[in-house]
């Protein structure tokens, strides 16, 4: 379950410019939902999974947009298949949230953009989780730990900031493994490449992926320079 999505497709003769590059598609495009979990690099999954198996606990992820809050929730969802994932969209009515008591397994809910839930409904949700004895995962732009603790839950907050060279390399290599053809060995980024990207974009993974999408398009479609400096 932890390994990246396995390449399964063979070369399509002629046609696709990506196949000539040893890839099925641009590795830095938007993956389909079914492939998303396998592309997420775990930073603390084992730790978080153990924590969430305890009763009445909450794991809260705080961070700016593009830092990987949603990715972490998606990753955790793999370990708790019965727990529903709910994304609260902006400017849309809040969907009905599942009753924590009715969820089999320790984790009751993974709630993305939790700060958008009106405070009264948030308090009701936290109280329901406390009553059910389950656990909860939140991704939020605002710190909700005070409300969580008031409801009688134990809160652990993970502030997502900073990006190590190893983590970025793992993210990029997983993407390429996901996109490569079964019988091809496309070039992989080296630590130098990752360090350059971190120097340019900081810990904004979304901007890094956006830039690499354009660089791969330029290389595979227009015959431009290879995205990795290590490849001559």
């Amino acid at each position, binding site marked *: 379950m932890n390994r990246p999505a396995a390449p399964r*497709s063979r070369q*399509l*003769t*002629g046609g*696709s410019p990506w196949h000539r590059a040893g890839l099925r598609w641009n590795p830095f495009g*938007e993956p389909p939902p079914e492939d998303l979990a396998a592309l997420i690099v775990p930073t603390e999954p084992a730790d978080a999974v153990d924590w969430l198996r305890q009763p009445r606990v909450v794991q809260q992820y705080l961070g700016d*947009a593009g830092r990987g809050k949603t990715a972490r929730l998606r990753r955790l969802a793999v370990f708790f298949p019965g727990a529903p994932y709910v994304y609260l969209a902006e*400017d849309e009515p809040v969907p009905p949230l599942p009753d924590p008591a009715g969820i089999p397994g320790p984790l009751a809910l993974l709630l993305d953009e939790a700060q958008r839930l009106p405070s009264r409904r948030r308090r009701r949700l936290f109280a329901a989780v406390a009553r059910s004895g389950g656990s909860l995962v939140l991704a939020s732009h605002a710190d909700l730990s005070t409300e969580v603790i008031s409801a009688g839950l134990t809160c652990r907050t993970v502030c997502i900031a900073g990006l190590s060279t190893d983590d970025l390399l793992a993210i990029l290599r997983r993407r390429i493994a996901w996109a490569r053809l079964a019988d091809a060995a496309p070039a992989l980024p080296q630590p130098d490449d990752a360090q350059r990207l971190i120097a340019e974009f900081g810990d904004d993974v*979304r901007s890094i992926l956006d830039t690499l999408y354009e660089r791969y398009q330029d290389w595979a479609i227009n015959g431009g320079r290879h995205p990795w400096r290590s490849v001559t």
Partner: protein
Amino acid sequence: MAKCDLSIHLDDDKTSYRGGDTVTGTVEVRTDAEVQCKALTVECQWRTHGKGNTARGRAQRLDLAQGIWPPGAIQRYAFSFELPHGPFTYHGHYLNIGWFIRAQADIPWALDPKAEQEIGVEPNPGQEPEWANLVHRMDALPEALRAQIGAPAAPLTPQALRVSSALGYGCLSIIVIPLLLITMFGLYHGISLLRNGGDWIEAALWIGVPLFVLAGLARGPLAVLLGTLRNRWAGKRLQDIDFDVTPLTLRRGESVQIRFSCRPDQNTVLNRATVRIEAEERVTQGSGTSRRTHRKQVYSHEEDLPMPHSLSAGLPFQREIEVTIPADAPPSFIAVDNRLDWTIRLQLDIPRWPDWSGERAILIHP
């Protein structure tokens, strides 16, 4: 080695097809231990990839087998799918359309083994257009195009009505009304200061600042309003404007007639009239606050509409131009979060007068 491996073999190793062709092949299952399979299925489906959220067509699906596979065995299961006439394989900048044969075995208490093979699907030259295979969101088409391809008119959904009215009332009550009140108070106070011989700088600030803020916030709606007003104003001079594009649906390599007519109410000098044909990929990525739309122009052709230097007052004027769509142009495609749109724009540059512009959407079939 895994307990169970799947692979897909297409007959004659063929990977390029035309719409209407039949794809035949086998799914090969290799096991190195006894495997119980709840269902072995194979699907044929198009899906998009690139920068936008994945859109996909309805899958043709076959149930191939279920039961127990013995260790060390190789099983082969034949499949056959008839390909529809579109959408066709496309590789653009933000938008790509691919066809995939995908096999999957449902194994209890284990990772389901999968195999996938991409195939190329090209248009069949003699085939009549089947718009439903290219336009997967009829509601996203302008009314004229819907009528042209025989699609029913799209009613506004209750959800769309609810959201738009909720947003409208929300904006009105939260932003517009307080701003209008502040502006009116500022204007009243500023004028009162001027009337009573107060400081004129203070009066100018009371009047100017709220007006400035209001104009800044209303920039978007103002741009739309100004565009409409500009066309109306230009139309006052040109009068009885008719901008017509026929046909609205055509094949690559065919020509489109663009006709413009008017009856100016006074002698009107024209600097230039240009017709621009454009194809644009437009994809949407993510959802909520991280929802972003990416656009890329993939075809653009501009041509001058032959015009006299001036149009005479009261005399009807008409010009036509025929433009051919290139034989390798990307076909139209409209699906959720992924589309390739074709438009024809006409712009008339009238000196010392607002320009007139018109736009028509067209559909291109391969």
